[in-house]
């Protein structure tokens, strides 16, 4: 029994990581209808940002979030305005552009660091929290907590503020939104910026847990795609619960089947959901089609 509880706890904590990475990815997809292949690289930049803040300003990575988050927001907004906006109306070109961005960011960091593996220390690393028979490191609990808080805060923002409603309106019908006085280009830019900032936040919170490398973004982006499809394209709540489901699936499959099969099981589930329920487990049926129709 303790073994199962342990596996479930590991799965949930892993799911918290995926959820945190996926919420921003899903926001970008839901609003701008771009599959951002560079989202994992924004996580990687967040990690290196935490590292840079530690060696230059001696900041704990959790404190560095207040610098790295806004920096990634600015980078995301810049990327949208300079690279993706000129390609508007050409969704495939935009996707290719994000893939190009992935390679540029990865190779630039590789050139700057020479491929040296760095790690970040936090004052909280040695602490743990007890849940009955199991003990969990505090940094992992913080990731799950942050994913929960971010999901709730973003959900509130989209539901309760005028700007959030404008973001949802653009996702549903951008021309009708224009007629309401919404500056659609600005909404796209801000949404991409928020998505990048959330990835940067994830990078900071993950930096005490992983040894970083320029290619580390790939570890997060593949499961994040599964999360987004599973949870529901464009659904913030879906990204959260999808993340938890993917984390639990990986943990259970890795333990009860074979660790080598955990990704295979995950992507089998990904394909089944794509075929059987394309709107995802938490997406609104038809919502993805409304947005895609708008792009055409």
């Amino acid at each position, binding site marked *: 029994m303790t073994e199962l509880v342990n596996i479930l706890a590991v799965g949930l904590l892993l799911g918290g990581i995926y959820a945190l990475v996926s919420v921003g990815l899903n926001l970008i997809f839901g609003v701008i209808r771009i599959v951002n292949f560079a989202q994992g690289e924004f996580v990687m930049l967040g990690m290196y940002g935490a590292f840079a803040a530690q060696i230059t300003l001696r900041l704990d990575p959790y404190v560095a979030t207040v610098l790295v988050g806004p920096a990634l927001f600015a980078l995301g907004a810049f990327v949208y305005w300079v690279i993706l906006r000129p390609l508007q109306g050409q969704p495939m070109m935009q996707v290719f552009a994000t893939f190009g961005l992935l390679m540029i960011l990865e190779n630039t960091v590789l050139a700057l660091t020479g491929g040296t593996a760095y790690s970040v220390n936090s004052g909280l690393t040695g602490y743990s929290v007890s849940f009955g028979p199991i003990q969990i490191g505090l940094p992992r609990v913080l990731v799950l907590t942050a994913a929960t808080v971010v999901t709730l805060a973003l959900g509130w923002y989209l539901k309760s503020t*005028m700007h959030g*409603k*404008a973001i*949802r*309106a653009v996702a*549903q*019908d951008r*021309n*009708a*939104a*224009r*007629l*309401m*006085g*919404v*500056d*659609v280009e600005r909404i796209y830019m801000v949404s991409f910026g928020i998505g990048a900032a959330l990835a940067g936040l994830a990078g900071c919170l993950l930096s005490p847990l992983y040894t970083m490398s320029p290619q580390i973004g790939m570890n997060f982006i593949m499961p994040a795609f599964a999360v987004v499809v599973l949870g529901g394209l464009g659904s913030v709540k879906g990204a959260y619960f999808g993340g938890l489901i993917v984390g639990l699936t990986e943990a259970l499959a890795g333990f009860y089947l074979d660790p080598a099969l955990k990704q295979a099981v995950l992507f089998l589930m990904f394909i089944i959901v794509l075929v059987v329920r394309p709107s995802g487990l938490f997406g*609104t049926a*038809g*919502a993805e089609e*409304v947005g895609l129709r708008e792009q055409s």
Partner: protein
Amino acid sequence: MSDDHLVIAGMGAGYGDVSVLHDISFAVPRGKIVAVVGVNGAGKTTLLSAVAGLIVPTRGTVTLDGADITRTAAHRRTGLGLAMVPEGGRLFPFMSVRENLELGAYAPASRSGLVERMSEVMDMFPILRDRQDQLAGRLSGGERQMCAVARALMSRPQLLLLDEPSVGLSPLMTEKVLATVTDLAAREGLSVIIVEQRVTEVLAMADIGHILDHGRIVRSGLAADLRKDRQVQETYMGL
């Protein structure tokens, strides 16, 4: 100030290499209802899209209250007192009726009086008060059209553009929607451009009429005169 609220002069417009409108010129006098009628594919929606700023005219000018707005972005035109009800309403289907109405007042100039305006608009369309928490995508055709008109009124426009408000509605419901628009135009002092395929009904409510054919205005005049015109009756009213 000129009595013309909106002036379209020599306007051409289209999509990519396809030219749809050719040399369109007419004015909308302040507080009047102008009907632009024509068969499907005549260019009516393109005309309103160009006036609303959703597409940029390839030639000519659009002037609102004496100011050239030909290249003004669509989202800025709301703040200039222009609102459009697109064909089919184009409500945000996964948002509630109330949220749709709130977005109608998104322009900064409209936000300060949002609560009062919401109350006024719900008084104009009492059914929306009952449906305010319902998803807009679940409204009936008539309710959807009412909601779309109400949403456009949230910004307190002076010029209202209506694109085929009868699409998908029964004749009875069409009559109701058009009567509501006529009443609102009189009560709020609105100038209106309405484009329609239902020529008989729309010429009955309008002050001025234009007939659009293959992207060109082929007849213009007082709506009452056009209704009596034999050629218009035979070609467009099926009489």
